[in-house]
């Protein structure tokens, strides 16, 4: 990136340094650090211009640092309708990704369980109309962690706000309320909920070597 003082710098005969000359210079230059590229560019323009500098000479070079290599990572997004059959679709997609990327069988089953609990909650309770809605799912895998994000445009609902069930009761007294979310919270390493504008966003993390 540069200001027009670079390309419009003139030599003693009032000829412009010009974009063409700059391009040729870049093509010939050894690309070292950004500092070296900037210093070399400023120097060549100053040399061209001679003693009299007509305008500012400003040059900025950026080095693009790529994302750290994630040989076994991936990012996958899918959108499903608020139909109970969507759970099977999501779980099939996830299971084949898990096999492909060597996610352990145990983690795969737990994520399948989480999808079943959370998607069935959304599909059954989140909508106060009969319309078709879209549920967005994002799956991110790095070497360290698996992150799943589920977002829906249903009524505001924080699944983690519900009470933890008493799992020590006798069979006669046991009721089922709250068990699904309790399972989700227990099998995952991190869970969070956000209401983002008009969507519920649930994020779940499973550490791969925990």
């Amino acid at each position, binding site marked *: 990136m540069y200001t027009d003082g670079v390309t419009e710098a003139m030599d003693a005969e009032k000829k412009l340094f010009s974009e063409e000359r700059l391009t040729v210079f870049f093509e010939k230059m050894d690309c070292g650090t950004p500092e070296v590229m900037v210093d070399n560019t400023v120097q060549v323009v100053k040399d061209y211009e001679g003693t009299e500098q007509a305008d500012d000479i400003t040059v900025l070079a950026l080095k693009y640092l790529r994302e750290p290599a994630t040989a076994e990572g991936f990012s996958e997004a899918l959108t499903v309708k608020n139909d109970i059959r969507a759970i099977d679709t999501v779980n099939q997609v996830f299971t084949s990704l898990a096999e492909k990327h060597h996610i352990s069988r145990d983690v795969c089953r737990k994520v399948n*369980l989480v999808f079943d609990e959370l998607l069935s909650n959304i599909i059954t309770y989140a909508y106060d109309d009969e319309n078709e809605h879209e549920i967005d799912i994002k799956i991110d895998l790095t070497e360290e962690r698996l992150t799943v994000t589920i977002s829906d445009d249903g009524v505001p609902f924080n699944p983690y706000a519900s009470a933890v069930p008493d799992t020590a009761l006798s069979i006669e007294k046991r009721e089922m309320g709250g068990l699904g979310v309790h399972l989700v919270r227990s099998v995952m390493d991190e869970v969070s909920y956000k209401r983002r504008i008009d969507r519920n966003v649930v994020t779940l993390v499973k550490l791969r070597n925990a």
Partner: protein
Amino acid sequence: MEINIRQKNDFTVVELIGNFDTRTAIDVQSELTALIEKGNKRLVINMETVEYISSSGLRVLLYTAKQLIAATGELRLCCLNDTVQEVFSISGFNTILNVYGTEAEALTG
């Protein structure tokens, strides 16, 4: 979900093949209720090929166990994989249901 039923010793063995979740819980529930209504009061549910169980599946097991207690029958479970066992312990189901390692143990225990 495939449900295989066979008689062995004094028990009716119910073999579940597939995941025991929201989608399949209704089928399992109606199959088990039908068995109990026909007078099968001693059930062994073999979960060897059940990859995971969600709260919908747990609900069916709890309901069935309660039905069988009321009918002076018995529910036994066997062959849970590690993940299903973990779900049983998180939910406390390992203390309210009878779980066996193998089908043979469930039939003789």
